[in-house]
């Protein structure tokens, strides 16, 4: 199995299992993970759940391309990106990024880079479902554009 994996799935993921898997590489002294969760304060205060849509086919390509960019910048020994789609209730995990490097600075930088680029270059869209049952598409955040821009 390649040390670089991406997955788009509706089911939950196991962050600990992914960290353990990437920790088995004897060259990796540093493993960093990021877990993103459905919060109760997106564009609105009364969010009950999210509905995640994506562009099948392009999504996987985009995630592999983002990992490729990270590998050009850092000594990245292994990386995993898992992104969930479909209906996700409040508190559910949405996204997991795990990076494994020889040195902690690289592992931190690569994980943050992967998240910043995923947020601007991977074709996922969030719809917020409110407690009254109404729903709306989330607008892209300027802060996410700024976060990916700082790597250029």
């Amino acid at each position, binding site marked *: 199995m390649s040390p670089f994996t991406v997955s788009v799935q509706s089911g939950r993921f196991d962050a600990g299992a992914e960290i353990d898997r990437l920790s088995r590489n004897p060259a990796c002294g540093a493993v960093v993970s990021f877990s*993103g969760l459905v919060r109760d304060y997106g564009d609105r205060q009364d969010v009950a759940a999210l509905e*995640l*849509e*994506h*562009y099948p*086919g*392009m999504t996987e*390509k985009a995630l592999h391309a983002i990992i490729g960019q990270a590998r050009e910048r850092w000594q990245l020994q292994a990386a995993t990106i898992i*992104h969930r789609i479909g209906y996700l209730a409040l508190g559910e995990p*949405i*996204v997991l990024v795990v990076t494994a490097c020889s040195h902690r600075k690289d592992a931190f930088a690569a994980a943050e880079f992967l*998240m910043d680029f*995923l*947020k*601007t*270059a*991977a*074709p*996922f*869209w*969030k*719809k917020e479902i409110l407690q009254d049952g109404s729903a709306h*598409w*989330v*607008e*892209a*955040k300027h802060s*996410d554009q700024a976060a990916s821009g700082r790597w250029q």
Partner: protein
Amino acid sequence: MKLNMVYFARLKDSFGTSQESLETDATSVAELLVELRQRGGSWATELGHGKTFRVACNQELAGPDSALRDGDEVAIFPPVTGG
């Protein structure tokens, strides 16, 4: 030539369709957008100048000058909001 158009998220809802087969003479993304805006209604509004949206050609992000070829899969969608 024929393009396989796909739409996502808010644009899919606005256009009332998620995909269509489009017979066109447009040779670039910019020309294709001119043609789609001429449909009026939500097409003119959502794809109007000053609106922010993204175009992908064969599942890679494309710019206004990107060339189009027969059979291409062209996607139009809002800025992404995953993660």
